[in-house]
């Protein structure tokens, strides 16, 4: 087996030719999953994940049989491999690609109503879980300030707003726990877990009128009351939005509203009621 054709021009292509042209061919999406099913590893021992479309592009969502265990937005830096690794590092569970999304997940993403989706906080501490739970209660298309989130969660935690920002920044369920609906006290979006453009796109997809919100906060008003019912709300609350312009009464603080004889809305809870 003596071969003399080792020299010559083709050698110059040696390194790049097969590795470059043959590369790693793509395996079928559910290859790994079928391996595990065939071998008989119990389904509870691993998570599966899908890549879905969200208003801002791709979204990886990992889930166990009973609940969703994590999500991350697809960015140029976050490939499927990186998502699998970070999921493993955070939860200690392997994420295997699957073509079939968690029941109800696609609908939740389409409508923005992910409040009923069972989420597994996994290794999160109690305070963060409580904050995320509070954020989940913000309805689609509405905004709440950080102080509201801190207060709603405080029954269990007593966290202040700075701590809440930190917890939101580590939100492991981006989009599904809608932290893009949280604002600072002055009405500016908080977007701790997102790039600014992503937060804007998510809010635009829910039909939140950010120009209107900015106008409101510039005028110094924080709450919106109705002089027919004498109830005041957060301005994006569904009940506030149906007050007709002649009946709108802006308030800068809850105390002003109370002094004027208004009570707090029981849906959006501007103060604890």
């Amino acid at each position: 087996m003596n071969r003399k054709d080792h020299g010559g021009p083709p050698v110059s292509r040696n390194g790049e030719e097969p590795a470059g042209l043959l590369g790693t061919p793509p395996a079928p999406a559910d290859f790994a999953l079928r391996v595990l099913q065939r071998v008989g590893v119990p389904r509870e021992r691993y998570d599966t994940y899908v890549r879905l479309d969200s208003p801002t592009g791709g979204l990886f969502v990992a889930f166990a049989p009973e609940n969703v265990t994590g999500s991350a937005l697809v960015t140029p830096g976050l490939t499927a491999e990186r998502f699998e690794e970070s999921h493993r590092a955070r939860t200690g569970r392997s994420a295997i690609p699957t073509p079939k999304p968690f029941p109800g997940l696609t609908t939740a993403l389409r409508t923005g109503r992910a409040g009923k989706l069972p989420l597994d906080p996994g290794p999160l501490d109690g305070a963060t879980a409580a904050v995320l739970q509070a954020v989940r209660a913000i309805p689609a298309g509405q905004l709440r300030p950080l102080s509201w989130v801190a207060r709603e969660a405080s029954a269990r935690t007593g966290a202040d707003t700075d701590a809440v920002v930190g917890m939101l920044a580590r939100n492991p369920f981006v989009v599904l726990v809608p932290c893009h609906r949280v604002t600072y006290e002055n009405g500016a979006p908080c977007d701790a877990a997102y790039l600014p453009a992503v937060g804007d796109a998510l809010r635009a997809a829910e039909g939140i009128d950010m120009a209107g919100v900015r106008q409101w906060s510039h005028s110094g008003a924080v709450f919106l009351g109705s002089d027919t019912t004498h109830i005041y709300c957060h301005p994006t609350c569904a009940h506030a939005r149906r007050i007709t312009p002649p009946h709108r009464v802006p308030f800068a603080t809850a105390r002003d509203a109370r002094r004027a004889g208004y009570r707090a809305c029981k849906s959006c809870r501007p103060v604890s009621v």
Partner: protein
Amino acid sequence: MDNAAEQLTDLLAADLDDGFTELVRVHAKSVHAFLLRVSGSAAEADDLGQDTFLRAYTALRDYGPERRRALHPRAWLMTIAANVWRNHVRSSTRRPVSAIRVDDAQDNWPDVTPGPAERALNTDDRGRLVAALSELPEYYRIPVVLRHVVGMSYAEVAQVQDCPVGTAKAQVSRGMGDLRRLLGTEGELREVTS
């Protein structure tokens, strides 16, 4: 990578199901890639890949923790995959399943006519390279694919082939030489395009 491999063996030693899931997550793609390039057929790569992992799991179940910890997961899996492939070639030559299989076996696995999906996937150059690869004799094809598709080191290739490192290098080199010659016979177009 080295660190990850160590963690993987530790996981396998600690808990078989958990470790095996991680093993599948990390290595399923390269096992599939290896079998696809060696067999030239997506359906076969799929079947044999399933077989490979089933064998791996069965073997791991009988290994003790020390033995699991001492594994080099990727090289070990590729050894199994290569054996599964060799067994498959042998048994399908001896016991052809259908008329198509007979033709295939006689032609020494040409598979030069990939399906429409594969043809769409492969650009012209890549398609020709894949076709040439499937014309290589099997004992060169495996080391070439291991080295240049899966991207293993010569030490790992040698481990899979169960031979000294020098032999592995020679096999890859000869395989590459053959491949070059196969592509060369297709004419001067290659030189123009590259």
